């Protein structure tokens, strides 16, 4: 009898999942199985519209807005929060289960709309670099255990970028803006162009006249100026945002004007940093040179970076095909520091196989009373199975 191909694939995925789970269990982690159907609200507020556009959202007969989970990290956070409301416990979870995403170009074997993720999430781990090294080492161990030969490790670090922002003199608001734009190369360049343009060179709009009349050190007077402006222009106030909120935002903009444009050298430094791409060992020196040429000091952040690399080596992470890329990021907004992906490095192999990173702000966004260190990885098991099959097919040919 010929086996049904769907049953065969199911069997292969089951067998692979149980091998993966064994590795996590032996590492001493705790297995969790969050619900597949999750409240839509939590996801939509945490992950934003980009993921919402790919999430299966529905309303049940009671009118509750629910979704098929688009990942397992947020459900794991909710579970942790439920079990440890004060969020002071150190927990290491692992899981394997289906996730669901709409695939804009149509579902394929590499990008199915239902796929299983196997992964781990560490909550409350104080020693950041050690935890990061453990996660990466374990991910590589899992891939080797199930039979994947060659892999490539790519990583980035939002922490370094934040340190760079802190080192360059500029208003806090600009730091927030640039950090926000960091993941999007075009948006970042556009923002830098805007910030380096002197206000006198910008197209004068009605706003620039008003801003000249606002003194950031006198908020009450500023509010009166804005109120008078609205009255003169016959614009009525309505909607959720108040006169005070609008005035405060104008005060921020007026302070930027008083500060003056961002020096072009600072913008160049940021662009130069974003272009850094090198083997992880070489990166520290590269960035260090970049900074010392311009008399900036990032030694604190760089020593964390260096320690992470040391920890990687100690944990046995294979760095032979590793590359650090300063602009490398994952397009989920919740990552806050170290990020990584593992793929086979072969063209057209259908996307990364494992991806993860640090998300220290996520638990608080889900409702925790304070920030909790968090780091995790999710393995795309369908792609993993495909990659192993492709690799074995090539092996058989040779």
């Amino acid at each position, binding site marked *: 009898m010929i086996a049904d191909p769907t049953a065969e694939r199911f069997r292969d995925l089951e067998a692979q999942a149980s091998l993966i789970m064994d590795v996590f269990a032996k590492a001493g982690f705790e297995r969790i199985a969050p619900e597949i159907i999750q409240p839509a609200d939590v996801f939509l507020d945490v992950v934003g519209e980009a993921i919402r556009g790919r999430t299966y959202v529905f309303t049940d007969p009671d009118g509750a807005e629910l979704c098929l989970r688009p990942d397992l990290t947020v459900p794991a956070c909710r579970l942790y929060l439920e079990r440890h409301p004060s969020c002071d416990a150190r927990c290491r979870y692992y899981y394997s289960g289906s996730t669901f995403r709409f695939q*804009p170009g149509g579902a394929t074997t590499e990008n199915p709309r239902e796929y299983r993720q196997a992964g781990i999430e560490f909550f409350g781990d104080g020693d950041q670099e050690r935890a990061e090294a453990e996660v990466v080492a374990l991910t590589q161990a899992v891939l080797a255990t199930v039979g994947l030969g060659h892999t490539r490790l790519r990583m980035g670090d939002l922490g370094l970028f934040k340190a760079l922002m802190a080192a360059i003199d500029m208003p806090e608001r600009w730091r927030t803006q640039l950090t926000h734009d960091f993941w999007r190369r075009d948006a970042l360049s556009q923002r830098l162009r805007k910030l380096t343009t002197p206000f006198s060179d910008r197209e004068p709009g009605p706003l620039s006249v008003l801003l000249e009349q606002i003194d950031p050190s006198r908020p009450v007077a500023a509010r009166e100026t804005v109120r008078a402006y609205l009255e003169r222009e016959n*614009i009525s106030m309505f909607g959720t945002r108040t006169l005070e909120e609008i005035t405060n935002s104008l005060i921020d903009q007026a302070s930027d004007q008083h500060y003056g444009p961002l020096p072009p050298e600072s913008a160049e430094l940021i662009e130069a940093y974003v272009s850094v791409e090198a083997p992880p060992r070489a990166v520290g020196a590269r960035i260090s040179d970049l900074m010392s040429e311009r008399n900036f000091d990032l030694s604190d952040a760089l020593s964390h970076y260096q320690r992470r690399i040391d920890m990687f080596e100690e944990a046995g992470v294979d760095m032979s095909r590793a590359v650090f890329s300063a602009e490398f990021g994952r397009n989920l907004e919740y990552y806050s520091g170290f990020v990584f992906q593992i793929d086979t490095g072969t063209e057209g192999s259908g996307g990364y196989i494992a991806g993860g990173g640090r998300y220290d702000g996520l638990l608080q966004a889900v409702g925790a009373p304070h920030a909790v260190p968090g780091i995790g990885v999710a393995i795309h098991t369908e792609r993993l199975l495909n990659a192993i099959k492709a690799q074995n097919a090539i092996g058989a040919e040779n």
Partner: protein
Amino acid sequence: MADKFILGLPSKGRMMELASEAFDSVGAPVDKDGDERGYTGSIPSLGNVEISFVSASEIATQLQRGAIHMGITGEDLVRETIPDADNQVDFVKKLGFGAANVVVAVPACWIDVEEVSDLEDVAETFRRKHGRRLRVATKYMNITRRFFAEHGVTSYRIVESLGATEGTPAAGAAEMIVDITSTGATLKANGLRILTDGVILKSEANLVASRNAKWTPSLNEIRNEIIEKFGA
């Protein structure tokens, strides 16, 4: 029997009249079956063409599915309904009617917001102050997501609105909107202002061909004949 060429035309209002006139003007008048309320028709001068009168948004859906070969509908609806429209359909000809822009509009009193890049600041501050995301009311969920993603705006949330979208900020159901406008008068009447770079799409009625429909040599011939008539 040869395969039928199915043409989708709008079933209601001004769009229906103008679409019909467009075929009149190229010498291929449309015959509606039965009385005015019928939902099928033909173009006698083109032979084997069957017309299906459906709503303009349904035409976009059917073009994607390949249930109709060609249709007349707004570019806005095609781009909203079909994520990778340029790979699924061909925009054969702009027809010069039904002109309207899909725009980002905010309350005019948001004098601190002039362009799209100002939105993220406001959205972040709003989230900190109100504990929730800025709500954008729209029926163009996909167009809005794409446009905001391209512009790095992320701290918002879409509220689906299927009518009277321009009233939602005043009613407190949303903070701002993405909507279609032809003259901007309705927006203005509702105290809203279009951001300086807030025109997402300049839309008008288009003659559109589906790439997903079943195309046989004889159906291709009809398509080419229509394209030729429209001088596209």
